[in-house]
Each structure stands twice: as structure tokens, then as C-alpha cells.
């Protein structure tokens, strides 16, 4: 099977390329990238030629922060439905967080996820295993065994590791395996009971609030621990100005830290909560305008390396309740790319740097052999139509989760072709 992607604008940060070119894919691998490959290859048997003039061809997008809910919460999402959502959003590789039931804290759960992924045969799913048994923050999980089973990183995402000594040990142990610790930064005592950002809007709505320092205190602690242990640290879902500032300073001092934010943090603010829409309930919470501006700045200046969706699907029953009782999180896989393209439209990022944050950078965080279009690489490719206008309709989501605050939004730019291992898995043109 040969596939020729003809005439698209190829944007690959790993090769530092941004040019109109043809891309030749054969037997699941990138074979050639160059000008006018059509004439030399048009006679090849079983070749499919796709004319992609005006479209953008990028390495398959990677989302290193998703919740696929299987095993345990299949009514919210499954590995299959989450993979379908990933494809529709342009993602060829996703990493899934361990807060399933049972928690992915041992080899059997990691192997289960890998087996399901193979059975689905849709996208690459990389399991992130728990730092502590049941993510309870008491005992370390078996990092070596989990790595051998296929885990690519460790996180108790959804919960912080409150015990600093345990976090230190986790960083040291993971570092010896060249594995990142992914930190969910939240001081549970400061955030206790909170359902939204602490600020003027919370003061008006009378909702219990989470101060930005609940995140920042843990960012500060984990940066100190990363410096002390020289271990690689990745900070998940950065949402506050203070976090961005501390990560920027830490990087300048040479600490091995990477960081991600999610589209909702550079798109929305706490002002959106005035209607009590539970689809806007998310942890960390939507912050102030100043925080949003800082997150965008952090993306622009490279402080924030990665855009990850924190895709958190929930069923209607989890969300159609009082705000205080609603589950937190929002679906992101099918809106992440379009919202991120907004950063390019606004001039906050160049297209090349945006794609960097959705391909080679996330691959680097988890040491995945993905994220570029070099000759011989796995043919994971995403094609984007930058001009496609579409209206976000949650009824059309492939995810089981319908909990998107972006329902009804007019979006510009969309993945129209998602190729995994040389096979077209999603096509919308």
C-alpha cells in the first residue's frame, strides 16, 4: 500500500521544515519527502494519490493527557470510543492517565490497556501508570515492572502527591529509568471543597473557591524537588500566572522541567461560570483573565512546551446535577486542535511552534518514537484544513462524553485526514 500526499504545506518542527512538498508513504513508513514525487511514483501499483493543495500536512498529533476511563468507567468512555475521538481530532498517539477503576498501578492494568489498544487498532495509546498504589499517595508502584509492561510515565493525575518525601522518591526512582514524573499540582488543604477559581466571580456566585496558590505551592515544591534530585519533571495542566512564572525561572536555571497547558486555560476564564454550566467545572479551575494572558505568554515564549487536552469525558448523569455535585472535567480531543489553531490566528504562536507543542514536544516528554516525518519514521500523519469552518456539535462527537463547553461554537480549522501507521483511519473531505 502506497500513499502519496501531494502538494500540501508540510510543517514538521522536528525537521524544521515548513514548505509545500509531497510525502510518500509505503508499508506504514515515511519513504520520501520532497518536491514533485508524483511523476516518479504515479505508476506504482496500488498507489493512492491525495491532492492536498491548500492543506497542512503535519506529523500525527500527540495528546499526552487524556482520560479514557477504561477499565471501570466504560459508561463515560472506552479505549475504543476515546480512540475514535482522537482520530476525529487529528491525534494519532494519545497517553491515558491511570485514574481508572482499578487504578493503573500494576502490570495487569497496563497490559490490559495495551491489549485493548491493539484490538481496537485505531491510534497509539500509551498508558501512564500511577505513582502510588491506588494513587493514594502512600506507597510507590512497581515502576520497573510497569515500564516493562509498557507504561511511558508516572502520575497520580486527578490527585496530588501530598507527601513531599514520596514525591522525592518517585522522582529519584523514575529518573533512574529515564521516565518522567507528571505532576498534578494541587495542595488539597488549600483547594478543599472548592469548585471554581477564587476571585471576583466566585465572590459573586458564592461558590466555594480554589485559590491559585493551591496550584502554585505545589509547582514550587515540585520544582525544588526536581532541582534537588536532577530528575525530569513534567507539570500537567498549568493554569495560573504564578505557575508560568516559576516554571520560566526554573527553566532559566537549568532545571529539567517541561510543562503543558490545555486549550480551555488559554481560551476561557472564570467569567464563563456565571450561568452555572457544569461543563465548565474542571480542575484546575478556569482562572482569571490575567492568568489566561500569562498562559498564552508562556506558550509564546516556550515556557509551556506542550498543549494537551486533559480530555475528561463524563456521562450526562455526572454533569446534569447541581454545580457542587457535578463531576469535573471536559471532553477535549475533538476540539483541541481547532482551539489551538486560534493561537496562530491570534498571532500568539507561529504554526510551526504550535505543531511543535502538539507533536515533537509531547513525544519528547514521554520519550515516544513519534512526532516527526523523517525518512523511516512510522507514517503517523495528520492533515489540517486551516480554512474549514465548522460548528462544534456535541451530538456528533465520537467520544461518549458530551461534556463540552464549546458546544455551538464556530471553529476555524480542522483535521480532515488522520493517518496511523500508513493507514487512513479518519477522513473528512
Amino acid at each position, binding site marked *: 500500500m502506497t500513499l502519496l500526499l501531494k502538494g500540501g504545506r508540510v510543517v514538521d518542527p522536528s525537521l524544521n521544515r515548513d514548505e509545500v512538498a509531497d510525502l510518500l508513504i509505503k508499508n506504514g513508513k515515511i519513504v520520501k519527502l520532497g518536491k514533485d514525487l508524483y511523476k516518479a511514483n504515479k505508476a506504482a501499483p496500488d498507489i493512492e494519490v491525495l491532492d492536498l493543495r491548500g492543506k497542512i500536512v503535519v506529523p500525527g498529533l500527540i495528546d499526552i493527557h487524556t482520560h479514557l476511563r477504561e477499565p471501570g468507567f466504560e459508561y463515560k468512555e472506552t479505549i475504543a470510543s476515546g480512540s475514535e475521538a482522537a482520530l476525529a481530532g487529528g491525534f494519532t498517539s494519545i497517553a491515558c492517565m491511570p485514574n481508572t477503576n482499578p487504578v493503573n498501578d500494576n502490570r495487569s492494568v497496563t497490559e490490559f490497556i495495551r491489549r485493548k489498544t491493539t484490538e481496537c487498532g485505531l491510534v497509539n495509546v500509551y498508558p501512564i501508570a500511577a505513582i502510588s498504589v491506588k494513587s493514594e499517595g502512600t506507597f510507590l508502584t512497581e515502576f520497573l515492572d510497569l515500564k516493562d509492561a509498557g507504561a511511558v510515565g508516572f502520575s497520580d493525575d486527578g490527585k496530588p502527591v501530598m507527601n513531599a518525601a514520596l514525591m522525592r522518591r518517585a522522582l529519584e526512582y523514575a529518573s533512574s529509568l529515564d521516565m518522567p514524573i507528571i505532576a498534578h499540582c494541587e495542595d488539597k488543604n488549600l483547594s478543599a471543597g472548592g469548585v471554581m477559581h*477564587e*476571585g*471576583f*466571580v*466566585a*465572590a*459573586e*456566585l*458564592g*461558590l*466555594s*473557591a480554589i*485559590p491559585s496558590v493551591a496550584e502554585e505551592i505545589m509547582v514550587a515544591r515540585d520544582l525544588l524537588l526536581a532541582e534537588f534530585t536532577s530528575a525530569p519533571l513534567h507539570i500537567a495542566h498549568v493554569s495560573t500566572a504564578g505557575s508560568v512564572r516559576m516554571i520560566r525561572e526554573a527553566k532559566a536555571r537549568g532545571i529539567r522541567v517541561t510543562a503543558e497547558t490545555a486549550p480551555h486555560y488559554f481560551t476561557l476564564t472564570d467569567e464563563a461560570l456565571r*450561568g*452555572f454550566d457544569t461543563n465548565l467545572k474542571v480542575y484546575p479551575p478556569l482562572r482569571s483573565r490575567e492568568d489566561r494572558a500569562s498562559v498564552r505568554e508562556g506558550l509564546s515564549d516556550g515556557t509551556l512546551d506542550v498543549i494537551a487536552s486533559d480530555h475528561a469525558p463524563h456521562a450526562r*448523569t455526572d454533569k*446534569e*446535577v*447541581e*454545580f*457542587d*455535585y457535578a463531576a469535573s472535567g471536559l471532553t477535549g480531543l475533538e476540539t483541541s486542535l481547532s482551539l489551538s489553531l486560534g493561537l496562530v490566528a491570534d498571532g500568539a504562536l507561529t504554526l510551526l511552534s504550535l505543531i511543535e507543542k502538539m507533536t515533537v514536544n509531547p513525544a519528547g516528554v514521554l520519550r515516544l518514537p513519534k512526532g516527526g516525518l523523517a525518512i523511516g519514521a512510522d507514517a503517523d500523519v495528520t492533515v489540517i484544513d486551516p480554512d474549514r469552518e465548522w460548528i462544534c456539535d456535541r451530538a456528533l462527537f465520537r467520544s461518549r462524553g458530551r461534556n463540552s463547553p464549546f458546544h455551538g461554537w464556530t471553529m476555524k480549522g480542522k483535521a480532515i485526514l488522520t493517518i496511523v501507521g500508513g493507514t487512513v483511519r479518519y477522513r473528512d473531505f
Partner: protein
Amino acid sequence: MKLNRKDVLGIRELSVEEIRLILDTAESFLEVSTREIKKVPTLRGRTVVNLFYEPSTRTRTSFEIAGKRLSADTINISASTSSVVKGETLIDTAKNLEAMNPDIIVIRHSAAGAPHLLAGLLRQSIINAGDGAHEHPTQALLDMMTIRSKKGRIEGLQVAIIGDIAHSRVARSNILGLTKMGARVSVAGPATMIPRGIEKMGVIAHTRIEEAIRDADIVMMLRIQTERERQSIFPSLREYAQYFSLNRRNIELAKPDALVMHPGPINRGVEISPDIADGPRSIILDQVTNGVAVRMALLYLLTGGDT
């Protein structure tokens, strides 16, 4: 004039004209409660459901009496929030009620936004009788009615609200209403009870009661919720009573004709000393009387009543 809205969810949504309409209508209903036969046929055949997810004596009784004096059929449902979390959802409960065709649903709930959730789903009128620490619009309306009748106006008055502003829906609704009507509002309480950003609601925040009540026309005391908050928000009731209660000494800082209000139920000797609560400045029981009239007015206006 008619009140052109389906629901009353908060003071935030009400215009100055709407607030005036409600207060004027309430005043006209005051007289009904003084008759020997305290009943008018205005809402005969109408059904009002009081759906209370939080314990309440005053507000629930007030709504019930208001409905009955207008000849509506009133039904009280008390549900504990905990059993609702485990069992039927609020939406299911509400849809079941809707299927029985009441005209108005009055809801009190511990979760902010619960009445808004119902308002978006049900065709009935929803009245917010208090949602979490968010709003308590009928309380603010009865407070404004009381102030207006005692002082002849709201505009230009200096009002001090003292206590746990952060957790008080009464404070929020009153701040919104009083500033809308042209009063100047100061709040005071321990720093842990003053929410961040409260100044943006147009009030001046203090951490000493004396600063807020100086030259006040109205001093509104809030109930200290002794049950849940005392562990972490303030050191002790003893200290609170000593430094933040309204008493014979500090009331002298207010204007000579200053009046004292409290939404009840009061903790005697904690946020207010008994001689003040029972003294000549106290209009606490006028608030209760006016509460019935305000609720009659809302039931009347929301069922299409005209003035």
C-alpha cells in the same frame, strides 16, 4: 405594570424598576395580613410547591403563609440533600413535580445555582428561596422594603453589613440590591469571612466592625453559622462575640437614628447582644412581617398579576 419574567432567581437579574414594582406591590399586600379574615381569592386554583432541600422555618413558613393568604394551594416538600445525592436527582424530582402541574416552584438548596438549573428545564416559575452562599432574593427584597418603609428611601443611605460575608447569600443579595437602589454599603467581618474581590461589587470592606458602622443609617447583622464554620474560619465564638458583635457601646458609632436588622435566626450574645436585638432600634420583627408581603407580591406578579 407587570413583572415580565418567568423566574426570580436573584437580585442580580432584577432592574431597579422591577425591584420598585415588587416593593410597591408588597406594600399593597401588607393590609391583607391585618384583616380578621386574612385571605383574598387572588390565587385560587393555583398551586405553589415549596421544595426545601435545607432546613428552614422562617422562609418556608413565610412562603406558605403568603400562598395561603392568596388562596393558593401550597405544598411543602422537605428533602435532605444527602438522600438526594444518593437517590433521585434534583432534575428528576423537579420533572416529577412539573408533571403534576404546579404554577410556581419555590426552591431552597444548599448548592449555588440549583434554582437556575431548574429554571432552565421547567416551564413553571421558579423562585429562589436561597441557594448555597449565592443569593436569597426574597430576603433582600423584604429587607429593602423594611428599610424603605422605615426611612422613606433607600438612596443615599449608609448601610453596614456585618458578619460572615463569604458564606452569606443574604449579604450577596443585599449588596446587589442596595447598591442598585443607590445606598452606600460597607461590610465588615474577620478577614477570613471577607471574600476576595468583594470590592468589585461596589462595597467598602473592613475588618473591624467599628469602621463599618460609623455613621451608618442601617446596621445589618448576619447570623454566624456556629455549626460548620468555626473550626477554621475564626478562632472561637468567644472571641467573635467580643470583637464583632453589635452591642450597646459600638452602636453609638452609628447615626443616632440608626436601625438594626438581622435576617434571623439570631444567636443572642454572639453576633448581637440581647438588649440591641430587643431594643428600640431593632426592626427585626418588621422584617419578618414584610417577608410575608414580599412573597405574596412575588407569587402574585409571577402568576401574571398586574398593579
